[in-house]
């Protein structure tokens, strides 16, 4: 077994993805706050490709280099006032983001509980 059994691969990935989910929550919040600002184009984070590359390469020390980029999302055409935020889309994205965060938090907790019960031996 690896020497470092607390900060192993799954923990590192879970931590990184939780911090990404936190940042994504901020981006979605900003989209919601600007739902009626004329000319506002919805924003999103771009990190998936880089994250997948690092995880596939197997060298998780590169996780620090995965820095999300703030990009404009022009997938939806803007309305007459130049704003392309759709509240229903933001709510869905926010819900998915929250579920992902909860899942990661639970995975981390489960891992810690496994270690704890193996240390207690009961």
């Amino acid at each position, binding site marked *: 077994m690896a020497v470092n059994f607390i900060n192993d691969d799954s923990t590192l990935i879970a931590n990184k993805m939780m911090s990404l989910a936190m940042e994504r929550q901020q981006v*979605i*919040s900003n989209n919601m706050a600007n739902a009626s600002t004329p000319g506002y184009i919805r924003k999103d984070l771009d990190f998936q490709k880089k994250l997948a590359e690092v995880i596939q390469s197997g060298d998780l020390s590169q996780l620090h280099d995965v820095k999300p*980029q703030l990009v404009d999302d022009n997938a939806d055409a803007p309305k007459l006032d130049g704003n392309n935020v759709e*509240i229903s889309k933001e709510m869905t994205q926010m819900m998915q983001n929250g579920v992902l965060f909860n899942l990661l938090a639970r995975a981390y907790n489960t891992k810690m509980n496994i270690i704890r019960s193996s240390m207690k031996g009961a």
Partner: protein
Amino acid sequence: MAFELIPGSGILASGMSAERERMEIVASNLANANSTGPNGAYRRRFAVFQTVLNDGLDATEVASGLGGVKVSSVEQDSSAGNKIYAPYHPNAGPDGMVEVPNVSPMEEMMDLVTATRAYETNLSAMKQAKDMADKTIQLGK
């Protein structure tokens, strides 16, 4: 990363205060729906929203693009109001016509409902952000 335990709380707070200001302007328009004056009637007011960029020292690459929203100015709708014939009125012109405000109650109610829904959206995002912070401080328990 800037230390923000509740992700996006400042942004959502800015959204909520902007929507509240919009509601107050609607309230002012509705309250003044019958206000006339010697220099013309009350003119409908409306809020202009503007995106804010985060220029704080703690701004990271991502956070620097996210500062929420603000009401940049409150403008007056300069379109002329209807005129009604009321020669007895103190604000009537020489032709006996009085200008009434260009406030449309229906339009104002629409604006009020939109602002309320937007406020609720920000509030529900705030709730989820709070749940995330709850989960964070309970990690490993």
